[in-house]
């Protein structure tokens, strides 16, 4: 038994180092968390082909390279390395929001946060409350903020591979019940040191069991490679300057890209809507995605078809399944960070019926056998679907702490999402 999974990306995806890295990362996590586990459940299952449907070349292009973006004081302020005064207060506030979300603690004043130190116990509260979210929220984004594999610049594929490995290591640590029990009662510094050691050991174990360079022998002990120093420094900095460090790392990523990403988000959607056509080939974006799906169904004509979409990818697919190719059967559709519900509210789909409105619901067409819509409450661009649609559909909440700043673009930046997808496929018995 084989199975194709088509991945349709969303807004802001463009060929380049980030895209290459993300594809490499997605491949590893899909394989390790979804595919290997499925193989254990279904002995006849052999492999899965992940087909990346890339349409970014037809997305919005800015003829002045976004020269129209204003240089505001806010963005400059948020990105500076040394912060003080109001900027520091803002950073403290943002970090407090993250910890609040994770630890069920409410900081009543910024002065309390300013005294945050290794003895304060806020981190252990957050970790004990939900170790998975704590690690994916606090650790993973810090490690991935710059070059995750250390000071040595790697190829995007290797960066992606390493990010996936690091994510898996963090995920394995977070879901280990022994580790969860062990952290009870630790001070914050002890917690960070302990988690650091566990993550590094996980990296070494992974390298031992499934080497990052398969088909090659390494004439020395398996190691976490150049990541050791990076992880060590990150943890040390986190222990010494938790608020400043955490927020600077996140804001560094955030500041540089937020405004540009918003412009691209709007631009991609407008370009898609503008180019969408009733005449074949239906516009470049639609036809590109259709070609990818055709490839999957031709390569695996008798197999289940699973499609994963992100953001605008879901809108494109919904148009295809309800208007352009209503005879295409999708056995499972997993949408992430999608705006399908919002678009239906605005009646922007080709098949939208303006007469249907609340309290009525849209019946899912029969060619969509199952639909899991994953949203992040911190992602202001993600919407739920169950109030609008009826049928075999489920909205699934997915909280990623790193998403405080970059929620919309980081659904696939942690292993927990892949675990949700795997559990959904098993629970719904998609492969039976």
């Amino acid at each position, binding site marked *: 038994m084989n199975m194709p999974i088509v991945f349709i990306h969303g807004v802001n995806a463009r060929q380049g180092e980030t895209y290459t890295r993300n594809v490499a990362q997605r491949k590893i996590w899909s394989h390790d968390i979804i595919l290997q586990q499925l193989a254990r459940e279904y002995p006849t299952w052999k492999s899965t082909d992940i087909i990346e449907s890339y349409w970014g070349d037809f997305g919005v292009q800015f003829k002045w390279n976004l020269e129209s973006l204003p240089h505001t004081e806010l963005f400059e302020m948020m990105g500076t390395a040394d912060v003080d005064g109001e900027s520091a207060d803002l950073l403290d506030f943002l970090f407090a929001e993250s910890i609040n979300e994770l630890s069920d603690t409410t900081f009543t004043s910024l002065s309390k946060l300013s005294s945050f130190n290794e003895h304060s116990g806020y981190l252990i509260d957050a970790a004990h409350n939900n170790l998975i979210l704590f690690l994916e929220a606090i650790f993973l984004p810090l490690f991935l903020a710059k070059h995750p594999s250390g000071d040595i610049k*790697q190829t995007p594929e290797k960066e992606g591979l390493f990010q996936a490995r690091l994510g898996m290591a963090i995920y394995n640590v977070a879901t280990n019940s022994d580790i969860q029990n062990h952290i009870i009662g630790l001070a914050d510094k002890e917690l960070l040191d302990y988690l650091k050691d566990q993550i590094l050991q996980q990296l070494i174990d992974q390298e*031992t069991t499934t080497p990052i360079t398969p088909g*090659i*022998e*390494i*004439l*020395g*002990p398996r190691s976490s490679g150049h990541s050791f120093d990076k992880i060590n420094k990150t943890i040390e900095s986190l222990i010494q300057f938790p608020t400043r460090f955490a927020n600077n790392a996140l804001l560094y990523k955030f500041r540089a890209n937020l405004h540009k990403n918003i412009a691209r988000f709007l631009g991609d959607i407008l370009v898609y809507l503008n180019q969408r056509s009733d005449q074949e080939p239906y516009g470049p974006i639609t036809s590109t995605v259709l070609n990818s799906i055709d490839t999957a169904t031709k390569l695996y004509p008798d197999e289940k078809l699973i499609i994963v979409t992100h953001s605008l990818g879901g809108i494109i697919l919904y148009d295809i399944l309800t208007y352009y190719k209503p005879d295409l059967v999708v056995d499972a559709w997993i949408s992430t960070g999608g705006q399908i519900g919002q678009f239906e509210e605005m009646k922007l789909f080709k098949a939208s019926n303006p007469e249907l409105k609340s309290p009525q619901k849209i019946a899912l067409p029969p060619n969509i056998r199952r639909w899991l819509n994953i949203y992040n409450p911190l992602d202001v661009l993600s919407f739920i679907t169950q109030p609008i649609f009826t049928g075999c559909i489920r909205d699934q909440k997915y909280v990623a702490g790193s998403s405080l700043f970059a929620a919309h673009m980081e659904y696939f930046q942690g292993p927990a999402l892949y675990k949700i997808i795997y559990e959904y496929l098993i629970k719904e018995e998609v492969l039976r």
Partner: protein
Amino acid sequence: MNTPTFNKQTALLYDNKADHTKQAGFHALIVGIGNYQSAQNLQPLTSAAFSAHAIAQKLIDLANENQLQVPLATCRLLIDAFPSSMDTILSQYSQPINKSVFQDTVISWIADARAHADNMSFLYFAGHGIQLSGNDRSLLLGDFKNTWNDAINIQNIVRGMSREPRYQLYFFDTCHIFPDQLRNNQSPVGTNIIDDIPLQEYTPDFRLIVNASASGHPAFAQPEGHTFLCDVLLNCLNGEGADIDTNDEDHWVISFLSLDHGLKQLKNTLARTKPWQIHEDDITLETQLSSTPNNSTIRVFQTPPITHHIFKIHESHPTTNIRVDIQDSNRKRHSTPTIIYPSFSLPLTPGVYRYSVHNCTVVSEKKCRIKQRKPLLIMPPAKCHQLRCEECLKCKRP
């Protein structure tokens, strides 16, 4: 092989010592450890034993063809092969190699090598290795059990050989990475297996130390095949590490200098062409050549041991039609067909040739510009020469 029986106790694969009591000889110690089953974080190696055996076989072949600079006197072979990858050949040689066995063999090898000042010593070790404190490096044997101070200190072996014999070759085919487990602890210094000799007393006249990886880097191998360094070394011994003999221009020779140069050149070429998913920059190789002034062409091997060699054109213009006329030392002319590179080869016996390129026409002016950074590079068995075609010159190539 010249010696049909292998003595596991002495590890002697080739023993011609009795015939060379008063004259210089070549003394080799070749080690391949793949059976690591006692230590955590150390994977068994399926390539180490094959690599060691291949190097030993090559040396004995060279000896049988009288290609070694001095006759082969002894060749010791220590192989501890990973059982599941052992074939019938390796099983003849494989035995557990612990510290005691290794120490005894090294001491015997050093004693033989130091018996005559003009001897040549050769050590090749394939197996796991780690970086010790400072820049010291170490080898790990099959009985290694995660006590890092039990790692065998490489510098101790090199120092143990001291300044005699005058000609020494070392190939350490291991990683030189610092284990994660040691980063928070005091660095180990490793184990000395022979009495250390003060630093100032151990520099021989000619010594080449080749490490398969630079400090802090891993070394790589093909499972069930050869290590990367093994392939590089074998290619060099097949002629790619050769140079014109400065004493006899009609002959090629592998010298300390040419071997050092050839290893580095070939490493770069193979790192680019190996079908491994490793960035070529991650494949490192480090050599340390020490020699007395003006003696850098001291021979290691005689004329490269090749009966036929392909006359190669490297990195030639891929759209260039060429015919190469080659004149050997007897003024006999050989010509290649006029053909587009790279489907071009001509078997030649070792020797010095004069050559010229004709009918060098570029297929497309446009393509010529695209490829203008790739000059013609013609390589007889070992020596590289750079040529440019007339058309290329017209294009004002750099």
